[in-house]
């Protein structure tokens, strides 16, 4: 289960605050996955008390409302990433950025599909730069695109371009993942699927033996 509470001292109308929280959740908590199981209790609550003073923010299209919404989104992204970082049994945080989609929503679907793939997650645990699993997970996301537009990178290593696998330095790519795991750090995956304006991110973690151990012993 994920729970979140966010507080804010801006004076903001419910007509601004409520859609801002929904949009921020769409780009943060709804973009993380550890094990594909949706909880019965997932909740994010946002409280804004106006203690900072000043005129109330009542127009959702005002520059102040947009700035507040952006700040809310990055705060929730930071918190959401900390959940994926602390995923049960995780040795690393996975961050997938999808680009070139027709919309941000499509890009988010692709990114979440990649970080949610058990095969990608276990490849990451094994420090295997497995571009095929990444490509496959993006391909079943439900987003339509052409194979020949696909480009995939793992950290600084490009694995696939124009839908063609590249002759990359597998040892260096594996070392990148190994170093991230040693530091409980972040592995970045970038997937480009065309030349559309859509960009989206999702976060997950690798799948280790410990995940099964923890959940075999935690009775629900």
């Amino acid at each position, binding site marked *: 289960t994920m729970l979140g509470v966010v507080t804010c001292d801006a004076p*903001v109308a419910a007509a601004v605050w409520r859609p801002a929280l929904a949009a921020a959740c769409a780009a943060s908590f709804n973009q993380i996955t550890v094990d594909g199981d949706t909880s019965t209790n997932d909740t994010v609550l946002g409280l804004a008390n106006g203690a900072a003073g000043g005129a109330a923010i009542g127009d959702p299209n005002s520059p102040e409302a947009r700035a507040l919404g952006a700040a809310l989104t990055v705060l929730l992204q930071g918190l959401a990433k900390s959940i994926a970082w602390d995923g049960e049994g995780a040795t690393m945080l996975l961050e997938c950025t999808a680009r070139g989609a027709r919309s941000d929503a499509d890009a988010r679907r692709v990114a979440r599909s990649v970080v949610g793939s058990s095969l990608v997650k276990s490849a990451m645990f094994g420090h295997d730069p497995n571009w095929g699993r990444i490509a496959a997970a993006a391909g079943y996301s439900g987003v339509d695109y052409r194979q020949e537009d696909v480009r995939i990178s793992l950290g600084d290593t490009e694995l696939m371009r124009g839908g063609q696998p590249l002759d990359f330095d597998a040892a260096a790519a594996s070392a990148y993942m190994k170093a991230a795991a040693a530091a409980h750090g972040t592995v970045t995956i970038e997937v480009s699927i065309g030349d559309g304006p859509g960009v989206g991110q999702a976060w997950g973690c690798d799948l280790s033996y410990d995940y099964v151990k923890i959940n075999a012993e935690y009775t629900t």
Partner: protein
Amino acid sequence: SAASTEQASAGLPGSFDIPAAPILIPEGPWKVIEGGVTAPAGFKAQGMYAGLRAKGDKADLALVVSDTPAVAAGAFTLNVMAAAPVTLCREVLAAHETVRGVVINAGQANAATGAAGDRDARAATAAAADALGGDEASDPFLVMSTGVIGRRVDADALSAALPVLAAGLGAGAGHALRAAVAITTTDLASKSAALEVELAPGRTVRLGGMCKGSGMIHPNMA
């Protein structure tokens, strides 16, 4: 360490001894600041052990309270088997634009608990309102639960602890940290963050947050 230090002075029961997760807020035109839910002005928080967890004495009950009624928003699971606290929060937010605060327990999820679970959730918000001396009808509380599914929360223990917890509320970073620890379950680290942002020249506001989660994580909230 902030939590441990303030715990001693607060004299509240429970262990708070887990590390904090790294701050992972992306860079941008905002400034990451210390603290969590109490970083914005006018908010207080606290955490303590209320005897709700089946094992150990890690803190398991948290309060986040606004000094004045706060405009409230929520995002909730789309799981059909939504827990009693989720159902209650949806009702409260449909009827009220503002709330006074949130009470959160760890140990039992109060999900798949039927009508008894609904009563337990309402008892928790009523006990929070009583402990803070407010009028629940006009300044309601929200409630969240996390832990084992299918088990009821010990409503008596929760209600008995709330006055103690309310008396220990504070606006320090340690108070926020203790609240963040108290909502954890299998988490290996507590999760808090805060930032400051200039909305317009000379107009700065603060946002703070805490969350928990480690497994059963694939949110689909609306």
